[in-house]
C-alpha cells in the first residue's frame, strides 16, 4: 500500500497530519485501551496466583538453610577434601562452634537438623544433642574433641559429606528425591529398593488416571451420542441429568459414594438382599483403588460428555444416511463415517478428564485408603505433616510440568479460546 497520492503528495487527515501517523496513533490508543482494561486482572492474577507458583518452583531448588545457619563452617569446609576419608580438622570445628553458638541462640539449629535429616537420617538428633551441649563447651578449645565428646557422629566422614554436599544455595536434592534418587559421595544413585516410593506413586497416579479416562470415555460416548441424536427438546431435558452432577459440590458426590460403597452401605445391602452375595461376603469397595476409580469416574464423567456432545452436535446426519444408501450396514456406517468425525471430541474430553484426574486430591484422600491415593496426597502430606516443603515443591513442580505438557496438547486439539462451560 502506498501512502502517497499519484502526484507524490503525502496523504493527510483533515487537520494536516500524515494519514499513516494518524492511523498508527489511533491503533496505539486502541491497544493501550485494551491493555488498560486487562491490566487490573492481570496484576491481580500475577500477584495472587502466578507469584505463588513461581515461589513453589523456587522452593524446589532453594537450599539457603545450611549457608545461612552455619556460614563460617561452610567457608571452612571448602578446604576440606570430602574424599580424604577423614573428618575435617580443628579449624572447621572452631568455625562450627562459632556458628552453633549463634544458631542455638536463635534456635535455628533444630531446623537445620530436620532439613538435613531428609538426606541422612540421624542428623536431626545430632544437632539437637549438640545444641544442648554447646553452652557447656570450653570456649578456648580444642573443639574437635569436645564435639566428638558431645556426639561421636561428628567424627564420621558421612556427616561432613552431607553437610558439604548441601552447603550450596541451590540444590537438586529435592528433585533427585522425587525420582527416588539421592546425591551420595559418588554422585547420583538410586535409593535402596525399599525406599523408592515416588516413582511408584507417579506410576500409580498415571495408571489410575488412564483407567478413569477410559471408563469416562466408555460411559460418556453412548450418552453424548444419544443426546446429539435426540430432538433438542428431549436432549435438553436429559442434559439436566448430566449438568446436575456437574454442578453438585465435589464433596457432596464424594460423601454420596462413601455412603453407597461402605460395607454396611446401600449397594452391599442391596446385593445381600437380592442374594447375589452372602452376608459374610460383603464387597470391599471403599478405601482402595476400586473406590477411587468409581467415585472419580462419576465425578469427571460430565467433563467427558460435554465436549463430546458439542462435537457430535456438529456432525451432520446426512453423512451417515449417505453411507447407508450406498450399502453400508449400521456398524460400518458408524465406524467408518460417524466415529472418525467424533474423534476431536474424544481427544478434547479425554485430555480434559486426564488433566483433571492426575491432580486430584480430595476424592482419593477420602475414598482411596492407602492403595488408592495419588501423588497429590503425598504433596499434601509433605506440606502439612512431614513439613518437607522443598520435596513437596519438587513433586508439585513435576506434576505441574506434566499438566502443562498435556495442556499444550489440549490447546492444539481444542484451542484455549474454545473452552466452553455448561
Amino acid at each position: 500500500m502506498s501512502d502517497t497520492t499519484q502526484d507524490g503528495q503525502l496523504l493527510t487527515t483533515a487537520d494536516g497530519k500524515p494519514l499513516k501517523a494518524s492511523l498508527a496513533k489511533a491503533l496505539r490508543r486502541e491497544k493501550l485501551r485494551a491493555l488498560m482494561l486487562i491490566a487490573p486482572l492481570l496484576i491481580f492474577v500475577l500477584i495472587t496466583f502466578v507469584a505463588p507458583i513461581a515461589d513453589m518452583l523456587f522452593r524446589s531448588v532453594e537450599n539457603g538453610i545450611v549457608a545461612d545457619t552455619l556460614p563460617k563452617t561452610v567457608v571452612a569446609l571448602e578446604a576440606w577434601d570430602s574424599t580424604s576419608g577423614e573428618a575435617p580438622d580443628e579449624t572447621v570445628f572452631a568455625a562450627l562452634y562459632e556458628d552453633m553458638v549463634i544458631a542455638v541462640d536463635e534456635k535455628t539449629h533444630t531446623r537445620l537438623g530436620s532439613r538435613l535429616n531428609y538426606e541422612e537420617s540421624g542428623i536431626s538428633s545430632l544437632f539437637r544433642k549438640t545444641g544442648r551441649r554447646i553452652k557447656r563447651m570450653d570456649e578456648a578449645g580444642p573443639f574437635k574433641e569436645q564435639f566428638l565428646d558431645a556426639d561421636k557422629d561428628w567424627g564420621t566422614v558421612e556427616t561432613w559429606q552431607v553437610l558439604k554436599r548441601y552447603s550450596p544455595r541451590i540444590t537438586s536434592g529435592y528433585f533427585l528425591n522425587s525420582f527416588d534418587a539421592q546425591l551420595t559421595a559418588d554422585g547420583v544413585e538410586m535409593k535402596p529398593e525399599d525406599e523408592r516410593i515416588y516413582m511408584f506413586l507417579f506410576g500409580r497416579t498415571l495408571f489410575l488416571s488412564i483407567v478413569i479416562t477410559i471408563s469416562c470415555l466408555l460411559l460418556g460416548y453412548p450418552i453424548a451420542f444419544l443426546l446429539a441424536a435426540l430432538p433438542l427438546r428431549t436432549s435438553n431435558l436429559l442434559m439436566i441429568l448430566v449438568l446436575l452432577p456437574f454442578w453438585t459440590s465435589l464433596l457432596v458426590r464424594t460423601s454420596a459414594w462413601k455412603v453407597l460403597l461402605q460395607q454396611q452401605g446401600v449397594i452391599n445391602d442391596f446385593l445381600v438382599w437380592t442374594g447375589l452375595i452372602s452376608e459374610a461376603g460383603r464387597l470391599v469397595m471403599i478405601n482402595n483403588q476400586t473406590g477411587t476409580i468409581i467415585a472419580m469416574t462419576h465425578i469427571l464423567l460430565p467433563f467427558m460428555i460435554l465436549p463430546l456432545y458439542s462435537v457430535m452436535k456438529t456432525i451432520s446426519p446426512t453423512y451417515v444416511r449417505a453411507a447407508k444408501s450406498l450399502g453400508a450396514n449400521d456398524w460400518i456406517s458408524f465406524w467408518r463415517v460417524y466415529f472418525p468425525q467424533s474423534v476431536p471430541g474424544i481427544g478434547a474430553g479425554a485430555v480434559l478428564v486426564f488433566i483433571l484426574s492426575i491432580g486430584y486430591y480430595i476424592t482419593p484422600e477420602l475414598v482411596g485408603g492407602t492403595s488408592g491415593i495419588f501423588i497429590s496426597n503425598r504433596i499434601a502430606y509433605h506440606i502439612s505433616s512431614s513439613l518437607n516443603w522443598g520435596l513437596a515443591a519438587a513433586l508439585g513442580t513435576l506434576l505441574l510440568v506434566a499438566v502443562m505438557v498435556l495442556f499444550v496438547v489440549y490447546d492444539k486439539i481444542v484451542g484455549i479460546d474454545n473452552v466452553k462451560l455448561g
Partner: protein
Amino acid sequence: MSALPPYASPLQRTWYYSFRIICGLIFFFLIFPILVILPLSFNAQDFFTFTKEMLALDPAGYSFKHYQDFFTNPDWQQALTNSVMIAPVATVLATSFGTLAAIGLSQSHVPYKPAIMAVLISPMIVPLIISAAGMYFFYSRIGLQGTYWGVVLAHAALGTPFVIITVTATLVGFDRSLVRAAANLGANPVTTFFKVQMPLIVPGVVSGALFAFITSFDEVVVVLFLGSAGQKTLPWQMFTGLREQISPTILAVASLMVAISICLLTVLELLRRRSERLRGLSPG
C-alpha cells in the same frame, strides 16, 4: 438413532432397545448417588443405609433430626457463616476484574493476546493441590496465610477464568456496530457501555459470577491449606467430618447443597435462553 424405522430388522430392533437400556443405566449411574442422599438424610437412625422402617415407608423411620443438628450445632453454623462471608466477596472481586478484562480481550487489537490469555486462564488449569501448595508457601511469606483476606484473594483468583470465559462467549456474538451507532448518536463511551453493551452481556456476567461463586463456595483444597480455624468453611467442615467422625449430619448438609445446585442450574439455564434470545441465536 432418532426413531426406529418400520422396516428395521429384529437385530436392529434389539440393538435399538439395548442401547437405550445401556444409556438409561449410565444416566442412573450419574444421578443415583445424588438422589440417594436425599431420603437418607431423613433417616431417624444414625445409619448410612435404609432402615427397615424407611423401606416400609413408616413415618417413624424418618425425622428431621440431622437437619436440626445442622441448624443448632455451633461448628456447622460457624462453617456456614464463614462460607457466606468468603464466597460473595471473592465473587465480587472475580466478577469485576474478570468482566473488565474480558471486554479488553475482545477488542480487535490486543498485543500479546495468547500470552495474556494463558496467564489469565492458568488458575483453572493448574491442579488445585499445586495452587494450594504455592499459595501456602507464598502467602505465609507475606503474612496472608491463615487470614480471611488470604482465602478471599485465593478464591477470587480461582474464579476469574470462569468469568472471562463466560463473558467472552457473550461478547463473541456482540455486534460492534451497535457501539458505533450509539457513538454516532452522541453517546459518550461510558453511556454506551452502560446503556448498550452492558444489558447485552449481563447474562454472561451473571453466569460467570455464579461460576465464581460456586468455585469459592465448593472449594476445599486451597482453604484447607490457606485458612486457619477461623476460616473453616462448609466444605472444609464436611471434609473433616468425612475423614474423622462421619456423622449423618453431613447427608443433611449435602442435601441442602444439592438444593442450592438445582437453583443455580435453573438460573443459569434461564440466563442462557435469555442471552440466546437477545442475540437472536435461537428462535425460541
